């Protein structure tokens, strides 16, 4: 673990106020996201996971405590633009985050905000579109794209700003399974290239891919650790009305019948491997 984290959240408290009433959402959250790390945040509806995500680039500001992005305090207005360049955010609804009438213009939107000189913009837009596999759609209007393609454009718009961290705020929840696969592939590749990823999700199989999982409950961190450590706590997870990834459920059912079969698996590939080992290769496994 490096000494200076990418994002540091300390004793964060936050409440929404409407009509004179206060609804506390985050109650004392402390966490760090390191460079190049993939952190998944899971939690039941209303656990505060989206609110937490919006604190990571200063869209919301803490009532108490603080958030630093590479040492820059999100409460200081003069840092906001730089913070938002470094920490980009992809939102849930694919239709509500594209601004322009043409894909390439949308990708350039963030660059325009950063006053990047026009000569440089074209290259950065091309690179970003290539990184998300949308270079053939450069001149298309967004409403001709599928949900997954729109989300890829949204990610492209953030990549063009050359961020250090990508926050996905339930970015796959409105997509069909095909669109989800597209996004996860892109995210995996970006993470491989060294960009830190924070994914807020309620798909446990997505959380299983992270380096670290943080479980939120009523605005507090209930569990934290590697996916293996977190998904081992089945009872606590079910108390929080959270699931175990599909692979984990299958593994534990097999384990119930065949005690020799490991029950602490949570990733698809691991499951496939274990089945192959367990059956000594006698069963053919479809890797699809």
């Amino acid at each position: 673990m490096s000494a200076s984290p990418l994002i540091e959240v300390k004793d964060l408290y936050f409440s929404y106020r409407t009509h004179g009433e206060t609804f506390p959402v985050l109650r004392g959250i402390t966490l760090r996201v390191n460079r190049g790390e993939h952190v998944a945040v899971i939690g039941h509806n209303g656990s505060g996971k989206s609110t937490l995500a919006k604190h990571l680039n200063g869209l919301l500001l803490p009532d108490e405590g603080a958030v630093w992005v590479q040492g820059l305090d999100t409460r200081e207005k003069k840092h906001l633009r730089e913070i938002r360049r470094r920490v980009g955010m992809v939102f849930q609804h694919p239709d509500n985050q594209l601004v322009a009438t043409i894909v390439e213009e949308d990708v350039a939107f963030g660059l325009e905000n950063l006053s990047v000189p026009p000569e440089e913009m074209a290259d950065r837009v091309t690179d970003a579109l290539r990184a998300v596999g949308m270079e053939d759609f450069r001149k298309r209007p967004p409403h001709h794209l599928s949900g997954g393609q729109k989300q890829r454009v949204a990610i492209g718009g953030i990549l063009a700003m050359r961020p250090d961290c990508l926050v996905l705020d339930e970015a796959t929840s409105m997509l069909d399974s095909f669109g989800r696969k597209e996004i996860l592939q892109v995210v995996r590749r970006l993470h491989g290239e060294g960009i830190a990823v924070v994914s807020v999700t309620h798909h446990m199989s997505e959380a299983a891919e992270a380096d670290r999982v943080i479980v939120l409950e009523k605005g507090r961190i209930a569990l934290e650790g590697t996916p293996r450590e977190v998904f081992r706590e089945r009872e606590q997870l079910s108390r929080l009305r959270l699931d175990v990834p599909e692979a984990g459920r299958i593994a534990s059912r097999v384990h119930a019948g065949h005690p020799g079969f490991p029950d602490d698996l949570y990733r698809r590939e691991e499951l496939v491997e274990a089945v192959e080992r367990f059956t000594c290769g006698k069963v053919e496994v479809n890797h699809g």
Partner: protein
Amino acid sequence: MASAFELTRNMTIGQYIPTDSAVHRFDPRFKLVAFGVLVLAIAFCNTYVGNLFALAFCLALFPLIRIPVGYGVSGIKPAVPFIIIIALLQFFFSGSIAPGGTLHFEYGVIRITGDSIRLVIVSAMRFVEVIFLSSVLTFSTSTTDLTRGMECLLSPLEKVKFPVHAFALVLTIAIRFVPTFAMEMEKLMKAQASRGAEFGSGEWWRIIRRTKDMFPLIIPLFNLALTRAEDLILAMESRGYVPGEERSVYTRYRSKGADWGLLGISLALAAVILWLP
């Protein structure tokens, strides 16, 4: 026949069709100016010959941008009721008489004169010509180029503190969400229709009833629009947008010789339209 629910497919005007003709490649700033020049010329032309010439010229533009004339002409359909209403009003009530003009019929406020007949025909032609011209402009120019072009043309106004850039952004976002809202509207209509609501089934003259029919659509549509707006603001802010701050511009235009040629041609055509007898 197109279904009443398919809002997005019934409009031809305002649709960009990338056929990549020579007209498509002109600088949008010049296209906008040329469009303005021609519309002005048509607005001031009140002779039959001039309008016939303009009409023929507008029709000739469709093959030039590689779009079937029939498709272009079908763009008048939604405007036909307006043309008829205007024509009827002018026919019965304009009643102006030039010195030496003929009076065909008079009863109370209704006066039909030689001049009013001419006015009816000429203004219907003008209407059609302007629709054709706008169709040609929007068929051959993407909305992005149109707003960017407009932004460039308006940019001198920045000196008097007019927020040109914000204005262009508002326009872009509005255009961006038109298809989104049209699809939303379709969904709402289908949802209401499946629960027994009827749209557009009443006789066409019962305007009030037909308007009332739309209320169950308008209110949820507004609600959805507001939610979308909130999301969009967050997304824009999160990409570093600060209203009124210095920004750079992605698309820049450089005029070529051909663009000046376009301007020259449009001025020449305007002159012909205005000076024809």
